[in-house]
């Protein structure tokens, strides 16, 4: 008989004292990695002591690349090959981009998403982001001199399924184990909430380089619940830069025949000028255009006039979100400012006026998201002693299906709590119909053409029936990361779909393999080695977790059931020592099936105890 590991009450029998988990803010303008050390969340610096990593990648003539500060500094001189602000391209096609001719890039559509032509070939936002993520991963591993357990990566709350999936793909390329994707406003609230230590209703106004989010959150005893969220995934400081650059070029009569370098130089100058105006009433826009130096003065008042339409757009979204939440502005106890663009005095004043209170700016708006992500990562890795932190988020954009006439039938409404599952029944249009095409979309508009296309698939092979007789149940499941999976089943015959889910965007496995072969700088080039490592890690975690569960709740099982379960655990542990990924996965599957009833019983017990424990408190 195998020996049961008995551990101290309240502690899992885990050989590692602490798992290294990090939070990563993958921002439009710059990115950061943070971790909880000695009970405090802190951003990890590079060798030069800098915590911000510019989200810039430059592809060099010799096939190498520069990532971060050196790339950022070269963006005017080598505009076409230095990619910045690629977050605006994640999960997008060329048709989605607005004034892309004002940017110094040559865009093409490739593999269902937009790519930029560089001297090193076409580069998608996913590949560029992966380079940035890999750099941060390296920085974290160097800081701790140890492997990472995993990372929490933040995304704008308003990112749709395509944008989120692209972020996960980038993390996969970078060799990161993603513990969770969390929304940037939620991460910021975590950093502030634990700092302020008070309960209540908070608004997080997050205006970054390329995206805008507004979230309303309720904090109650360590539980952060998003009540409603809204935003614009294509609105940020970059747009104000563009407006300023346009104005400067127009006032100098320089708009015609601009090279890529000129366009970039104009934007760089605009940003520097804008930032200077946060601290001074006057500043100068100056740039080399067509080989000649040019300059023009402007005042903060002039900048504010240029920026006002964008700020007003954000305030309209804020009002809409308050309506969605059925809350009044007066009920909001604190307004948190996140993102570099909230340094603008105009933004702080306008938002303060809307909520009739001074906005909270005590934490560094550049770092707060990464810090919150680190706190969450620490909790997910099982390091947090009290373990009371819980993030209950929502889906920001409605999900639906295309129906006759190009209309959208909404299945999951925006601001629904996630994880969520919802089924919708459909029927056939014609007599004898044996197949149905299902088109999944995301967005708030009524026409399919105005929503984001997520995937198309076909349900085939159900028996022919009279029109209207078939019952096809389409089930949507959105996980805690906000990612969707869809299945369809014909209820009468039980025929299940999954014939071919063609995502309308995104990377297939062979595309990822190709990218790795093409010499992606930091990743493990061998997909097989990576698959093996992932299978081993997953198996080891499950083995540890099941042993811990048995140590805590063996009483829920008979002694035969315990013995049988331990046998499955041993088998999985044994397999994990081997080199065969599919064998490991098979043993893990068997263990999962064998322990499901036990897991459900424990879940049950936990729930009963939690509800009973609460009632005792009431007395």
């Amino acid at each position, binding site marked *: 008989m195998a020996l049961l590991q008995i551990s101290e009450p309240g502690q899992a029998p885990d050989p590692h004292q602490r798992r290294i988990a990090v939070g990563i803010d993958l921002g439009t303008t710059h990115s950061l990695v943070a971790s909880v050390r000695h009970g405090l969340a802190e951003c990890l610096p590079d060798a030069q002591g800098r915590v911000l990593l510019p989200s810039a990648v430059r592809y060099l003539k010799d096939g190498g690349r520069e990532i971060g500060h050196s790339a950022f500094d070269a963006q005017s001189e080598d505009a076409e090959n230095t990619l910045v602000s690629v977050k605006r391209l994640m999960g997008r096609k060329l048709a989605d981009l607005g004034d892309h001719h004002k940017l110094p890039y040559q865009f093409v559509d490739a593999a269902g998403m937009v790519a930029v032509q560089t001297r090193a070939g076409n580069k998608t936002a996913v590949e560029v982001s992966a380079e940035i993520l890999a750099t941060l991963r390296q920085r974290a591993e160097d800081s701790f001199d140890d492997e990472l357990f995993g990372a929490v990566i933040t995304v704008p709350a308003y990112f749709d399924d395509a944008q989120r999936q692209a972020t996960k793909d980038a993390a996969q390329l970078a060799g990161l184990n993603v513990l969770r994707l969390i929304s940037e406003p939620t991460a910021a609230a975590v950093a502030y909430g634990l700092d302020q230590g008070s309960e209540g209703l908070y608004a997080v106004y997050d205006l970054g380089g390329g995206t805008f989010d507004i979230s309303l959150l309720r904090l109650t005893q360590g539980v952060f619940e998003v009540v409603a969220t809204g935003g614009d995934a294509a609105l940020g400081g970059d747009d104000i830069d563009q407006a300023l650059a346009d104005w400067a070029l127009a006032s100098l009569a320089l708009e015609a025949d601009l090279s890529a370098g000129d366009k970039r130089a104009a934007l760089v100058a605009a940003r520097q000028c804008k930032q200077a105006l946060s601290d001074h009433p006057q500043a100068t826009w100056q740039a080399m255009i067509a080989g000649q130096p040019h300059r023009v003065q402007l005042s903060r008042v002039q900048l504010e006039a240029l920026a006002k339409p964008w700020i007003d757009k954000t305030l309209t979204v804020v009002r809409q979100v308050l309506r969605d939440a059925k809350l009044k502005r007066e009920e909001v106890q604190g307004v948190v400012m996140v993102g570099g663009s909230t340094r603008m005095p105009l933004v702080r004043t306008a938002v303060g006026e809307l909520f009739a209170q001074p906005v909270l700016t005590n934490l560094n708006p550049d770092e707060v998201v990464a810090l919150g992500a680190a706190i969450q990562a620490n909790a997910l890795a099982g390091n947090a002693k009290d373990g009371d932190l819980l993030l209950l988020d929502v889906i920001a954009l409605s999900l639906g299906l295309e129906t006759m006439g190009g209309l959208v039938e909404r299945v999951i409404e925006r601001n629904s709590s*996630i994880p969520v599952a919802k089924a919708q029944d459909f029927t056939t249009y014609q007599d004898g119909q044996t197949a149905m095409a299902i088109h999944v979309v995301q967005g708030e508009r009524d026409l399919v053409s105005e929503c984001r296309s997520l995937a198309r698939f076909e349900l085939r092979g159900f028996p022919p029936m009279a029109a209207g007789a078939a019952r096809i149940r389409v089930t949507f499941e959105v996980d805690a990361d906000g990612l969707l999976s869809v299945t369809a089943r014909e209820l009468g015959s039980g025929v299940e779909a999954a014939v071919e889910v063609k995502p309308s965007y995104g990377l297939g496995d062979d595309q990822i393999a190709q990218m790795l072969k093409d010499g992606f700088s930091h990743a493990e080039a061998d997909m097989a080695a990576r698959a093996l490592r992932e299978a081993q890690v997953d198996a080891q975690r499950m083995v540890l*977790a099941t042993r811990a569960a048995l140590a805590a709740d063996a009483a829920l099982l008979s002694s035969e059931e315990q013995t049988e379960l331990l046998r499955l655990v041993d088998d999985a542990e044994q397999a994990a020592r081997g080199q065969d990924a599919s064998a490991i996965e098979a043993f893990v599957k068997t263990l999962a099936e064998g322990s499901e009833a036990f897991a459900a019983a424990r879940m049950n017990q936990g729930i009963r105890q939690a509800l009973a424990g609460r009632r005792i408190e009431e007395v």
Partner: protein
Amino acid sequence: MQLSDDDFKLFELPRRFALDEAELDTRRRALQAQVHPDRFAADGSAAQRLATQWAMRVNAGYRRLKDPLSRAAYLCELHGQPVDVERNTAMPAEFLIQQMQWRESLEESSTAAEVRALEAAVTQQQSLMLARLATLLDHDNDHAAAAAQLRALMFVSRFRQDIDRSLDRLDPQR
């Protein structure tokens, strides 16, 4: 306890229309603290998948119980009187006249003030109808009549969305 238990059983709340919303919120937090997949982030993918199923179930139950109309519809269903809006259009007769009057009123309104006055009247009527629904369910135990009342309330709900859209047009800054 099973995933397939009814919502009232899951949340350990009495099977009736009257509900303490604060209590529902607290129990939902307590449940999610136990079943949310984040609690199982270190335990492997199978554990997280199972937890996700439970978290979805908790969220579905919460959503259904939180909204008065969906809660009432659920109670009717549990008592063998599904509301079945598609096939059953039976509503209290006097309400049909009210429906038409309100529609006309909205179509004829040209200012935000007029629409707001209509909104106030509708809101007042809605409260009375909800009170009647509560009596039918919790006092009279008349689920057939409750289902009819519910169909009327669903109309009012949809009509309020039309009012909102009208106000969005007439007063975008509100």
